[in-house]
């Protein structure tokens, strides 16, 4: 009697663990030449467009070319290289104002009353009298400043034409105080006290009841600071984004304020006050800036602004940012989406899906493995594309002498890694959509309508802001907010349209919108994959 031993393969048991499924999916991805070429194409298109844009945005020295800028004050002319100052945080700032000052040695305080803030010398806007248009951020008040160097640290209490009393410091920081406009009937009392590195601002409507607006820490303030009265008024800019291109017409403005009840504590010199129009450059600025002192009343006239310079086209800061070099992202994203679609639909086309699901019957795991493979591949491609575009194009721009917005490294890192994350999650989103609809044309259409078209509609000016604003909040294209190069400051009026690189949602909030859509699509895909016959 012979016993029959069943045949056993000597090959190691392959198992059906998640690692094997992942390995199988990776093998599928890696061995289809067209898909690998598609990923490489995504990198080349994105980085190539970045390099092209760096070359094509080289300065043309005739004038500011982006729009019809005119007016007496202009910053950041493309040819002269950067002619703006940097603030304590390293950001480009505008630091131009009329300053009636004295040195203050050690600790002390300065108190004043403002009885009026009026605007003068308004020019016309678009050939129409602009007298009724308020410049809400005209400022008049008191300031303590680290010397008279341009871009040096400061803290200031001020009344504004349209935004009440404010405590502002180091250009980017802003805290509100008493609301309402200033007038002789309702004056505003302002006080700044210095104690070592801390400066505290107070305001009052009557000079007896004081409210602390805020306390500011200015590190490494010298023992002797410049302190006094200041007036400044930013240029008024009318934006129109229409007829296909954006336009801005800027006019310098000038404000005059009246101060009285000046009182001081601490070691102030007995000498008279010094009046300076600080940091005028060349011919820029108004003739009438100055001050007049009589019987304890100071009448000060000034123009300019103490604020961050806003990057982007039609703004007063550098027009070009690293985000401009990443405008090709959407084209790279299309290429990645095509690959991600076919990664799933090719299985249905060839009937391979039946083999795949026979080999690993847990369908949710198959979807997860595919998502991980395509997401990782897209992340690597996106990282290469974004890093290549930003680094090479920045190098070219510096070589050309293009005035480029100096991106702080954490923001630059967020832009590059964020672009990679955007492409990776968009690839997973595409995969999920392709699983749901199973046809490549329909899947790619849905992804393009959801992600690419909202971006394309918002990238050039010309579409009403109300529509692009809504699209960039609701659709997965909200994730393009990860590429926003500079913060939006509520205390500076500027062109904050998406076409200038500003998005309605914060970077990671926008990314969360894409992630939410992706989770929803993946859930639907997993459900339908399990439910339907392959």
């Amino acid at each position: 009697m012979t016993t029959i031993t069943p045949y056993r393969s000597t090959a190691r048991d392959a198992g059906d663990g998640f690692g094997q499924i992942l390995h199988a999916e990776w093998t599928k991805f890696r061995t289809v030449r067209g898909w690998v070429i598609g990923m490489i194409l995504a990198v080349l298109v994105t980085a190539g467009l970045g390099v092209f844009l760096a070359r094509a945005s080289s300065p043309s020295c005739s004038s500011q070319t982006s729009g019809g800028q005119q007016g007496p004050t202009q910053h950041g002319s493309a040819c002269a290289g950067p002619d703006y100052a940097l603030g304590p945080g390293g950001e480009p700032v505008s630091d131009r104002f009329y300053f009636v000052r004295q040195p203050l040695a050690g600790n002390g305080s300065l108190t004043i009353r403002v009885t009026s803030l009026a605007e003068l010398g308004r020019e016309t806007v678009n050939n129409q009298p602009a007298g009724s248009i308020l410049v809400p951020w005209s400022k008049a008040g008191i300031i303590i400043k680290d010397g008279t160097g341009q871009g040096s640290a400061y803290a200031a209490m001020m009344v504004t034409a349209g935004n009440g009393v404010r405590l502002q410091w180091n250009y980017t920081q802003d805290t509100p105080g008493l609301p309402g406009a200033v007038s002789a009937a309702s004056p505003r009392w302002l006080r700044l006290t210095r104690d070592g590195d801390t400066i505290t601002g107070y305001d009052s409507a009557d000079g007896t009841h004081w409210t602390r607006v805020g306390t500011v820490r200015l590190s490494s303030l010298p023992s002797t600071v410049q302190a006094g009265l200041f007036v400044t008024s930013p240029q008024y800019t009318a934006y129109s984004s229409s007829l296909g291109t954006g336009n801005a017409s800027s006019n310098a403005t000038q404000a005059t304020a009246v101060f009285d009840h000046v009182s001081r504590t601490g070691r102030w010199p007995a000498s008279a006050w010094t009046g300076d129009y600080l940091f005028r450059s060349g011919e820029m600025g108004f003739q009438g800036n100055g001050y007049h002192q009589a019987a304890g009343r100071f009448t000060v006239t000034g123009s300019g602004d103490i604020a961050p310079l806003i990057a982007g086209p039609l703004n007063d800061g550098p027009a070009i940012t690293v985000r401009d070099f990443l405008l090709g992202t959407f084209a790279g994203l299309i290429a990645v989406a095509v690959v991600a679609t076919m990664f799933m639909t090719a299985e249905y086309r060839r009937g391979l899906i039946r083999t795949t699901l026979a080999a690993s019957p847990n369908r949710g795991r198959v979807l997860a493995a595919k998502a991980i493979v395509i997401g990782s591949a897209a992340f690597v491609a996106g990282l290469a594309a974004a890093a290549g575009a930003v680094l090479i194009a920045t190098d070219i721009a510096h070589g050309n002498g293009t005035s480029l917005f100096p991106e702080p490294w954490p923001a630059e890192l967020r832009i590059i890694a964020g672009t990679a994350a955007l492409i990776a999650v968009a690839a997973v989103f595409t995969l999920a959509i392709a699983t749901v609809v199973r046809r490549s044309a329909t899947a790619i259409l849905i992804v393009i309508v959801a992600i690419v078209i909202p971006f394309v509609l918002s990238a050039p000016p010309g579409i009403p802001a109300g529509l692009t604003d809504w699209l960039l909040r609701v659709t997965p294209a909200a994730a393009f907010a990860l590429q926003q190069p500079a913060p939006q400051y509520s205390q500076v009026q500027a062109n904050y349209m998406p076409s200038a690189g500003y998005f309605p949602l914060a970077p990671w909030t926008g990314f969360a919108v894409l992630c939410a859509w992706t989770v929803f699509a993946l859930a639907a895909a997993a459900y339908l994959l399990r439910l339907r016959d392959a």
Partner: protein
Amino acid sequence: MSLPAAGLSRARYGSQTLHAEWTKLRTLASTGWLLLAAAALTIAVSAAADAAATCPSGGCQTDPAKLSLTGVQAGQAIVAVIAVLAISGEYSTGMIRITLTAMPRRLTVLAAKAALITGPVLVVSAVAVLACVLAGRLILPGHGFTAAHGYPPLALGHGPVLRAAGGSVLYLALIALLSLGVATAVREAAVAIGLVLGVLYVFPVVTNVVTNQHWQRHLEQIGPMTAGLDIQATANLRSLPLTPWQGLGVLTLWAAGALTIGALIFRFRDA
């Protein structure tokens, strides 16, 4: 379907090809749905743009005709997909081999497809564009575009508005032909759609940040979308890099080029 007899006349062969292609197009459920979606997206985006428009006191400085036809920029994506599917659908199912066995004259097949895609796209585009103009006529006066500001209600009787509306219909038909040409060349639906829309959209996105005016003007002149949409302009024509009809001519060249390349590849490559 009868096989083409050897003695079939050229005209009869052509009409049979047309009939066969029409049957294929007509009986696909997706064609109707996609045409409907193209019209819906075009109208919805246009109406949303109208509703979001504002006209500040300093002057709207907006071209109301162009504004109310904004949706064409989105709707063209679906038109492109319709045209791509007309040919790539045959490749994905292997139907192309049967088609070419039954109708061996390949250029006739392609011409029949081109004609049959253009017809429905023209009809649906005309309906969508009319709806867009109507929406603009109804919505824009409520947003400051009044006769007092120098904006009479949109009317097709006005020459430039008629040119913008009629030109937008032609624009969408040309986009369909361009897409058909590209899809014939690359066959794979997803790749063709990605390629067409990438080429269309890259020009308006890129020209925005090209500060060098020389480059900017040239890019706007050669881009199929930027040049083609010049047809929608009714105001400030002198600031355009091309006249409206020249712009549509550039898109026609793109479509003709794509169809020629597609036809050559179709003629000489194995199916």
